Each structure stands twice: as C-alpha cells, then as structure tokens.
C-alpha cells in the first residue's frame, strides 16, 4: 500500500497541513496546561500562559527602605536604586497604584496641592499630578481632573519622584519619610518558570509509595479484566451455546450503569465477605466496572476475524482453549492493546474507586488520592499543582500508549485468506 506509484504530493501536502492544524488545535489547551505547570499559582491567575513565554510589561510596587533620608530645605529627600542588589529596566513609573506608569524614565513626576475654582464658584483644594522632563521645569496643568481651573500660584509641592531607566530614583516629600514609600514602576518582567510545582509533587512524603500503590492497583486492574473479558468475548463471538444473544445484549446494557450506583452495595459486600478495603477489593471493583466495555470491544473485534482461520485451527485439532490462546489472542492484539490503553488510563486516573475501595490511610494512597487529598492546596484551588500533577500523571499513560501503539498494526491478517 505504501508502494503505490505516483501518489500525489499535493495530496500529501494537504494531509500534512491538515494534520498539523488539527494537532495544533488539540495542543493549544494542553500546552496551556504544560506551561501553567511551570508557573506559580499567582502567575497563572495574573497573566495568560501565552504571555508567559515572553517577558511582560508589568507594574510592580517597590518600597525602598527609608534609610539615608536627607533633608533639603522643607523637603525630605530619599534617593537610591529601586533594583537594589538586582537590575532591571524601567519603562514607566508613578506614585499611585492607579497610575503606575504615569511618567517615563528620566522624567519627574510630581504631585502638587492646588486650589481650584469649582463651577459654583467656590474655591477648593485638590491635588494635581503631572510629569515633566527632569532638565526642564514642569508646567502646572491649568485644570484638574474634573476640568476646574487651577488658581494660579496656589500650588505647593507635595512630593515628587524621579526615576531613571536603570532604577536610580530620587523621592522628595514634604513630610518626613519614615515608612517606606510606595513607588510604582513598570518594567519588563522576564518570563518566570520553575520546577517548583513538580518538585512539590515529586518530593512530597510517600510519593514513591503512592506511585507503587498506583501500579499495584493499575497493572492487575488492567490485565485481569482483559483476561476475563477476552475469554468471555471469545465465547460470545465464536462459541455456540444457548443464550448467547441474550448475554451480548446484557453486556451492552450494562455498559451504561453509572458507577455511583454500585459503590455502596459493593463496599458493603466486600466488608461482609471479609475483603474489606484492600487491593483485592479494588482489583475486583475495577474488573467489574471495566468488563462490559472490555467484552464489548473485544467481542466486536474477534467477530471480525476470518472464520476460515479459526476453523482451520479446529481441524488441526486445537481445542477451544488452544484456538483462543494460540490464534485468536495473538490476532486480537490491536483490540487488546487499545483496550489495555483505556483500562490503564481509567484506573490510573481514577480517584473515586480508589477512595472507596482502598483504606484511607496514607500507606495505601494511590497517586490521585495523594495529589487530591494531600498536595492540592485546600479546596483544590492550586492550579499550578493541579497542572503539574496532570502532567506527572500523564507520563506513564503516554508511555503505555507508545508501548502499545506498535500493536495497532496494519495488515495483521494479510495473506491468511483469499
């Protein structure tokens, strides 16, 4: 098939492009999650993940320590560098949170107390703020925010701030600077990523234990239902007995049973027969809940195998057991692999069943429980952790997917029958 001559390249280009498009569409959300997993919770809520790649213009509040205040006439002066001990580049600054980029670096930003004439004629005092170049003298605006004319000559300098691009600043105030003043600068924040979230997950107590527990739950809970279902599927597909149709119908019907219905009665049952909350219990539970889908998928696949091959094996003297193990099972690899992937995913990501059927002590926690109950900040708000957890737990299933994908092969049946 890959051998066919003259396959059109244009078609393959279109195919490639559309797959790329689809993949990108599919990835956008996931990439978002991935990026978020390297960010702290605050960053996640502050800016979009797509912005996180680039540095962001961000306004921050800096409160320089009020050491070394000098006196200059009526005014108190504080000067220094805003990025004490670090470096940065200021693209704007201000003295209130409302206008953190009111002035450009090199300018002076000043606040004056002034008198204004209100529309009704009364004179009121208010404040005006304006920026001017450091070398030139500032011109006072003639109106305040509301458009009232300023009474000329009434101005008194409240405070002023001058910040250079490298962070050098001079802060002048008419009152003593005892508390650290709040200076707002707008700077380019470098992208900030850390492995903090991952570290928190990976290094938390007993994580290894939880990992092993998860495997202990997952592996048998994947293999056992497959095994049981494969036998049942074979019987339903290739063996002749009364009630076959009814059983098939029943399996389809049971596919839809909501899990929640079954939890309480089953746990009661487990307690009654002495299994209690244990690994055995959770295997059985996963097996029971996974079986309908497994039988359904496998049966449908097996029915499609060429009849002649199975008959041939029977003529060769194989019993049903041998036909199943030697012929049907190997030929059903694609279906087995697909189902294995799904059952694995399902048990791997499961939280509900693990919580119900395993003891609640931390000794028997699986990873999902560990993450949900132990790591996630209270009430599940920590998106960073959640994102990292999602990626930590994605790794193994993806590995399984890769490992299994090679069984989803083409032409397994090629050459067997005409």
């Amino acid at each position, binding site marked *: 098939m890959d051998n066919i001559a003259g396959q059109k390249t244009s078609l393959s280009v279109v195919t490639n492009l559309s797959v790329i498009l689809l993949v990108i569409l599919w990835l956008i959300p996931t990439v978002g999650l991935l990026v978020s997993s390297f960010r702290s919770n605050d960053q996640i809520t502050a800016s979009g993940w797509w912005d996180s790649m680039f540095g962001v213009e961000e306004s921050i509040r800096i409160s320089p320590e009020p050491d070394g205040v000098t006196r200059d006439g009526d005014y108190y002066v504080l000067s220094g560098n805003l990025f004490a001990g670090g470096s940065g580049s200021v693209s704007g600054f201000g003295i209130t949170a409302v206008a953190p980029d009111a002035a450009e670096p090199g300018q002076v930003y000043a606040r004056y107390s002034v008198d204004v004439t209100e529309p009704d004629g009364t004179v009121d005092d208010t404040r005006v703020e304006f920026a001017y170049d450091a070398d030139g003298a500032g011109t006072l605006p003639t109106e305040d925010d509301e458009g009232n004319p300023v009474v000329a000559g009434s101005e008194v300098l409240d405070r002023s701030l001058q910040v250079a691009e490298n962070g050098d600043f001079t802060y002048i105030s008419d009152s003593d600077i005892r508390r650290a003043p709040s200076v707002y600068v707008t700077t380019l924040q470098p992208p900030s990523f850390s492995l903090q979230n991952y570290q928190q997950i990976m290094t938390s107590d007993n994580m290894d234990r939880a990992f092993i527990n998860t495997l202990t739950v997952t592996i048998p809970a994947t293999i056992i239902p497959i095994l049981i279902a494969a036998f049942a599927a074979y019987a339903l597909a290739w063996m002749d007995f009364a009630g076959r149709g009814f059983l098939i119908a029943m399996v389809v019907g049971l596919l839809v049973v909501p899990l929640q219905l079954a939890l309480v009665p089953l746990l009661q049952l487990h307690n009654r027969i002495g299994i209690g909350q244990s690994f055995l219990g959770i295997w059985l539970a996963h097996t029971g809940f996974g079986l309908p889908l497994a039988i359904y998928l496998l049966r449908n696949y097996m029915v499609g195998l*060429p009849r*002649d*091959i199975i*008959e*041939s*094996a*029977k*003529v*060769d*003297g*194989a*019993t049903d057991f*041998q036909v199943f193990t*030697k*012929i049907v099972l*190997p*030929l059903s690899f694609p279906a087995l692999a697909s189902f294995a992937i799904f059952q694995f995913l399902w048990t791997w990501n499961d939280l509900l069943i693990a919580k119900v059927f395993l003891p609640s002590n931390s000794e028997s926690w699986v990873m999902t429980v560990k993450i949900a109950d132990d790591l996630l900040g209270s009430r599940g708000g920590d998106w960073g952790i959640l994102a990292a957890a999602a990626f930590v737990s994605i790794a193994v299933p993806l590995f399984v997917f890769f490992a299994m994908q090679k069984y989803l092969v083409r*032409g*397994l*049946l*090629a*050459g*067997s*029958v*005409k």
Partner: protein
Amino acid sequence: MANLKLKDVAKTYGGTINVLKDINLDIKQGELIVFVGPSGCGKSTLLRMIAGLEKITRGTLEIDGQVVNNVPPAQRGIAMVFQSYALYPHMTVRDNMSFALKIAKKSPAEIEAAVAKAAKILQLDDYLDRLPKALSGGQRQRVAIGRSIVRDPKVYLFDEPLSNLDAALRVATRIEIAQLKESMPDSTMIYVTHDQVEAMTLATRIVVLANKGIAQVGSPLDLYERPNGEFVAQFIGSPAMNLLPGEVIGTGPQTTVKMGNGGVAVSDYPTQESDMGRHVKVGVRPEDFLEVATGVDFIFNGKVNITEALGEVTLLYFEKEEGAADPVIAKLPGIHTGLRGTEVKLGATPQKVHLFADGKSLLYR
C-alpha cells in the same frame, strides 16, 4: 481406519438457500474420492460438512459406523486444505505447518522432521521463516497443503489444493499426493478439484455433483466412457463432449442414427425396436472425432471457425449451428494449420459414439 457414510445429507443456508439435498454416499477406507462439479454446486460445503465446520441441516454423517453429526472437527481426525488457504497470519510458514503437531504434543524432533520433509516436497525450504503475507499465491497454497500433509489424520480433505500452482509443480504435487495416498493405504482422502486431469489421475472414484445432488459416482474411466447422462458426459472431459441431435433409424446391438445435414452415426449402444424413430442426442468427444474423407459416412460436417494449435493436438471450433447451445469442437492429433474457414467432415468409431435421450444415457435404463 475410516469409512464415511453420508445418508440423505442436506444443507440449507439461512433457512432458505438450499444448497445440497439427498446426498447419499459411501466412502470406503482407503479410497481417494474426488468431488467435481460446476462452480458453486456445493463441493466446498459438502467437504466442510464432513469436516464438521458446517452443521448438517438434515441427514446423518457416519464415520466408522458412528454418527458424528455433533462431533467437533478436532475429534474427527481429519486434516483439511482450505480453498482460501486459511493460513495463520501471525505465524511463520514453519509454525503454520507445525501447529497441528504441537497441539498433538509431538516431540520437537518429530515436528522438525515432518516439517522439513513437507517443505522439501513443496519446495518451501526457502520460505520457512516468512510470514504468509510475504508469500506469493502459489506459495501460500503450498503452505496450506504442507500443513495437512505433516499430520497423520484418518481423513484428508483437500479443497482445490493445486489451483494456484504452475503446471510442473502441480504435476509434482499431484504425484506426491498420489504417493502419499499409496504410502498410507488406510487413509481416506476427499479431494475437490476443477482439473480434469487431477480428477482422472488421482481418483479411485469420482463424485460428480450437480443440481444440488450427486449426478454420478464412479471410477474415472467409467465416467469418461459411460456417462449416465448428458450432464456428466459434458462435464467430464475437456473440451466437452459434442452433442448432436439425430433420429434413430436402426436398432439392435448397434444403433444407427440419422443426423442433420446428411450424416449418419453408428453407436455400439444397444437399442430395442421400440426406440426406432426416437429423437436422441449423439455424443462424440472432440478427441474421438476423426477427419473422414468425402464420400465416407460422416457424423458431422461444418465450417471451421477458429483453430487452436496446442502443439500435440489442434482444436477446431466449428461455426455454431442455429439452435445449438455450443459450437462443435474437434480435437485432432498433430498440428493442422490453414483449416480456418474450410469445410471439414468428421466421423468416429462406433465405440466412441454415445447416445442420450431426454438427457439420460441410453446405456443406463
């Protein structure tokens, strides 16, 4: 070891499609029975019923006196070559062939030997480690044959085992099968084929299936020389026997028949007075026709439409007469060229002239 007895066996697919009915057949241990019949007449179906792969709708199948209608295939002691090969796609050629032996818990050495032997016979040595998908059609078929001959079953069932093989290999394999049969005189074989030569050379008896039932059973020569009706007469032998209409004009131990356009046929078939004037079909095999000189009695004369030179013989296709289903064909020994478009007169010796009335042979009444 194995006598087979089919009693009133019938097969219906899906309740309505009637494929076979009233099949009665005794197969003795050691026989090699060949099923022939037109495509779709139910040969494979019959074989599959014997194998136990298809339920018998009505009637019984006995193996060695035991009714086995409900015995599963594995317990019937049979080996089968499927028309569709039915190779195990996930196993190499070697594994395909040794599968049955492994199931039977034979020792590895034994298996190895059996496989090697079969591979040699079937010229598959070079392919033992390939998967079926990397084989040619003929190679796949050989694997399918190999799979059955490595075993030692009571009954062999072959469904057109040689159809994809080249002539040389076909002859060789046919002879292998004959020898296999000879070396195991006790085993019973049932063989479906479309190849006349295969049928003729291999069969102890041939079963001709037609029209949902058995048309005739007999030894190859029987069928060839004494077909019980027009169907068998035309089915056995290739090209098929020519059937020409005529009217009985002389009876007795030999019968004389007046043909159309002036010909006269004399047959060794005996007839009675009462047959006088009866409309019959005169059957002459293409290879039994002889060119006769003008003036001599001829059975048929006509204009040659096509000639096919096959080397040792030449086939003459005559122009089809009105009303006739098929053109008359003659097979003359040697190479004849330049006959196309000429008029040729044909006759035959009385032993070789068959007579049929109402589709039945006048020999069998």
